[in-house]
């Protein structure tokens, strides 16, 4: 495997009852890697194997350090791995205050002489838990408890943060409340995070790298935006198919309250003043919001019309009303990929084919959150 020093390389196989797992993937040592798939796809098992909480045959190296290698007889137990692990439901020490819970992680890290890369005040402000420090864990809400648990995990100065559906035990409101804090962590900390989720909305907001799982196998692994636009994968076939794009704020129109975000191959306008020049932003475009025309559209209320080139067309079979089109932004199609769902009738009327030059009209661009 190449570039293992800067990567997480994992391979596990084995069976648990009737369920068999056989996976191998690589993920970068930075950003958020999401293990994504339906329940029963093995994502939590993989995470537990990475933590050393569960042992399957395999190999795991993290940033060049071998944590498991059956061939060499290496298996570091969970408590010997420099990890932070966030469980579905946070359990804090009931006899310690929030602050003491946080410091518990830090104290151990200091004892082991770990370099203090993550500071307490930084974590407290990123997670917004300053006002909770004096409280007892019993007095916290589910979302607050989970934020404290994340803080405690991070202050133990782990080399890798593992999160097992940390939002699944929370209700919608608590989820919406906590996600911005996770995004802030993602933006400000350099520690790699492996995040298990079955919720595509969480993945779109947080993940950089995606490991797509199904029934104990890896369907695909790679950058999120590539996998979203891969015609061979179920993400694109799903009715709610969408792509995420990373960009930076290029200009701000204060008179009309619009923000222009430059992405690879073009510029997209989103409503509202969404930050300062140069800020990183993550955008989401659903396949249903994209249509194509052959010439630059004249009178239209749609702000985002960009030249693009069609890269692939799938689902073009008799009896199917719609086809799925992947296009690359820019006249050469080398920019960011977008996906569109259009009728087969329109496709044939405009004689669209792979390589066609088009103008993509994007009815709505959602600002997901601030990207990396």
């Amino acid at each position, binding site marked *: 495997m190449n570039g293992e020093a800067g990567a997480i390389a994992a391979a596990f196989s084995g069976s648990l009852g009737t369920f068999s797992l056989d996976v191998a993937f690589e993920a970068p040592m930075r950003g958020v890697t999401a293990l994504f798939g339906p329940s029963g796809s093995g994502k939590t098992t993989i995470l537990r194997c990475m933590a050393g909480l569960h042992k399957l045959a395999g190999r795991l190296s993290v940033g060049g350090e071998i944590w498991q290698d059956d061939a060499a007889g290496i298996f570091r137990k969970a408590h010997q791995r420099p990890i932070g692990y966030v*469980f579905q439901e946070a*359990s804090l*020490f009931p*006899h310690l205050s929030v602050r003491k819970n946080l410091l518990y992680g830090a104290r151990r890290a200091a004892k082991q002489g770990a370099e203090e890369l993550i500071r307490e005040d930084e974590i407290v402000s990123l997670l917004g838990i300053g006002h909770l420090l004096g*409280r007892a864990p019993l007095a916290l809400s589910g979302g607050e408890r989970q934020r404290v648990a994340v803080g405690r995990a991070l202050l133990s100065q782990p080399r890798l943060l593992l999160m097992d559906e940390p939002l699944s035990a929370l209700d919608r409101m608590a989820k919406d409340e906590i996600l911005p804090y996770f995004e802030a962590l993602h933006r400000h900390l350099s520690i790699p995070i492996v995040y298990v989720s079955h919720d595509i909305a969480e993945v779109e907001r947080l993940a950089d790298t995606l490991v797509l799982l199904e029934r104990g196998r890896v369907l695909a692994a790679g950058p999120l935006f590539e996998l979203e636009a891969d015609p061979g994968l179920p993400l694109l076939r799903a009715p709610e198919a969408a792509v995420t794009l990373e960009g930076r704020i290029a200009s701000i129109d204060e008179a009309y309250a619009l923000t222009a975000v430059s992405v690879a191959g073009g510029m997209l306008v989103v409503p509202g003043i969404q930050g300062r020049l140069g800020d990183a932003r993550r955008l989401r475009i659903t396949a249903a919001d994209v249509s194509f025309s052959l010439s630059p559209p004249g009178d239209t209320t749609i702000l985002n019309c960009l030249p693009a080139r069609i890269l692939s067309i799938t689902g073009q079979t008799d009896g199917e009303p719609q086809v799925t089109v992947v296009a690359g932004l820019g006249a050469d199609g080398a920019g960011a990929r977008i996906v569109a769902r259009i009728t087969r009738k329109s496709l044939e009327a405009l004689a669209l084919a792979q390589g066609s030059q088009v103008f993509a009209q994007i009815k709505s661009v959602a600002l997901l959150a601030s990207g990396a």
Partner: protein
Amino acid sequence: MTTGSMDSDDADETGLATARMGRRGAPLTLIAALTLLLAAMMIGAMQLGRYPIALADIGGAMLRLFTGGAAAGQIDTVLWQIRLPRILAAVLVGAALSAAGAAYQGLFRNPLVSPDILGVSTGAGLGAVIGIFLSLPVLGIQLFAFLAGLATVALVSAIGLLVRDREPILVLVLAGVVVGSLAGAAISLLKILADPYEQLPAITFWLLGSLSSIRNGDVLSALPMILLGLVPMILLRWRINLLSLGDEEASALGLETHRLRYLIIAAATLMTASAVAIAGVVGWVGLILPHLARMLVGPNFERLLPTAMLMGACYLLLVDTLARTMASIEIPLGILTALVGAPFFLWLLVARRDGW
């Protein structure tokens, strides 16, 4: 942990206490008050009984003990041979069961467990019943109770180790219930087979728990075992707090807790089995008193352990004194503790589902 960190914990948690429930005063004051209460109750219990002894006579008897004066007949006999051993046994057994209960509740992260949870009490009960069935002397019965209690825990733990890939705490608890009911079946069988005039009453009385036949030797034989179980709890009291997380959470924080957990289970079992060996099966003490103590001082084991032990001692001394003075016949302890314990347990179940 060092004493230094304990001090800083204390300083920090004063604010926490007020924020949390406002009923956690300075624990030292509480412990001193409980100690005084226990001492007062012991002196009170010495006076009460079929043969009342005046306070002045107790003072005189104590004085004689130190000055080596001639014994004043019956008073000294009742006090030193019968009443004091019984009081000390109540204190010892109450403290031991309560300490074991506090440890089990912390280990299993479940407020509704008690020394019965691993089948310890029933297992030790079976051992004692076998001893009675074989017409062994008292010491033999105690030894059997103790060995059977340990064997039960060993069996339950072995099942826990065999069943992998399941929630380990749940497996242990279920294994305890199953092994406990097997022991219960064996006890029933022995009761049917036992001599109905000689052995059956003894078995029944023993299974209900009683301190009526306690002698000095019993106290002296149980004391070292109970202390042996107490030592690791005192030495590791700070680390026992860490067990409230569960093994997986703990190991994800870089802690290895398996061995500690088994060590504390063994220690708590040793204390329970020793108590059962001299007092019979006294239920409920190990459930209720640790709970009340936790309500008073919170879940920090450093405070919980002494508070629970003192409260357990006071409680069992009170119940045993009632048992021997309330009616003309001895009321078995198990009956009185169940009368208080069962309603309390139901209340816990219904009213305090918010955790602990």
